[in-house]
């Protein structure tokens, strides 16, 4: 169950799969070319479905570092979300 997998706060499976891809790219120039040419296909083959059609792989060099800024997520708040209640109960304790 997904909840149990992330109880400790880390979705390690994503990191582990990416590490396997990094290792394969370091070990094999042909794999690296395949990754750069068809990143979605390689990620999917490794069980990392990116969920989008456009994926770019950038290789760091001795003079260039790439940082990824995650997309801004949506706000969440109790005062808005409680209006979606589908139960027939009141909160008591």
């Amino acid at each position, binding site marked *: *169950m*997904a*909840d*149990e*997998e*992330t*109880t*400790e*706060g*880390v*979705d*390690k499976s*994503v*990191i582990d*799969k*990416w*590490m396997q891809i990094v290792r394969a790219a370091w070990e094999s120039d042909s794999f690296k070319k395949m990754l750069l040419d068809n990143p979605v296909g390689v990620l999917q083959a490794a069980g*990392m479905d*990116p*969920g989008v059609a456009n994926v770019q792989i950038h290789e760091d060099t001795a003079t260039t570092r790439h*940082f*990824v800024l*995650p997309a*801004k*997520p*949506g*706000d*969440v*708040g*109790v*005062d*808005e*979300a*409680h209006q*979606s*209640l*589908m*139960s*027939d*109960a*009141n*909160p*008591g*304790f």
Partner: protein
Amino acid sequence: MEWAAIGGGAVVVATEARGWLHHPANPMDPFHFPMKGPGTPATTGRLLDAAIAAGLTAGAVGGTPPPPLTATRWAWRLVGYYHLTHSTPALLVETARRFDAAGRPALAAWATEKAADETAHDRLALRDLDELGYDAGVTSLRHPTAVAMVDWFRAAAEGDALPLGVIAYAHTVERLALTLDAAAVDAVRAVLPPGSRAIRCLRVHSAIGSDVSHVSDNIRLVATLPAAERAAIALACRRVAGLFSRTPDEGHLDDAALAALFRPWRRSHGGQDG
């Protein structure tokens, strides 16, 4: 900033002013990693709010809204109130004992104080039901949402793990109670007979009752805990909120079905069906 994984690949992220629901997709996303560092009441409060909000939204998926409130349906909600409040003191006493045994005196003191605060709240629900014309035996009915909540509460209080889930449970239900403002109380009053006082339990568990200070007390306590425990409590808040917001598997009972259920405990002079 504080964050916590809440299952399904989602992470709630909080600052003093905002809460976000984030789905880390990139392996280099910093929110794949566990939260570190101390909490503050401002960010911890937002973190727990975001987790509760995410749980409410997730639990409601595929559900159906309950029918409009009537006096009969309010009695049904009071049956749920009874189950939630009746179970509380004993489970909090057990929670205090276990925190104490684990060498966590501050958490034990919190549970002990809360057990005292919450004692006899079930009598408020019974008095409200009585005023609506129902004998106490009506509380033998199984209110599915309340039963699911109490089962979760009991498992957290009596399970093998440190009962941090009890803190999450208490905070979630008390935080949700704050969504019930004076207008919500008036909406209930409007379906009851003129002059009815069958809102005593509601008033206590609302933004005009004691739950206001309880929520800030809970947040101050959680903010002092290590990051891993704050994250575990956030995850538990999401689960409790999910249970609370979901439509029961058997669906919602309509007023006719509720009236039939209530009949053995309905006094003839009550006469207050909506």
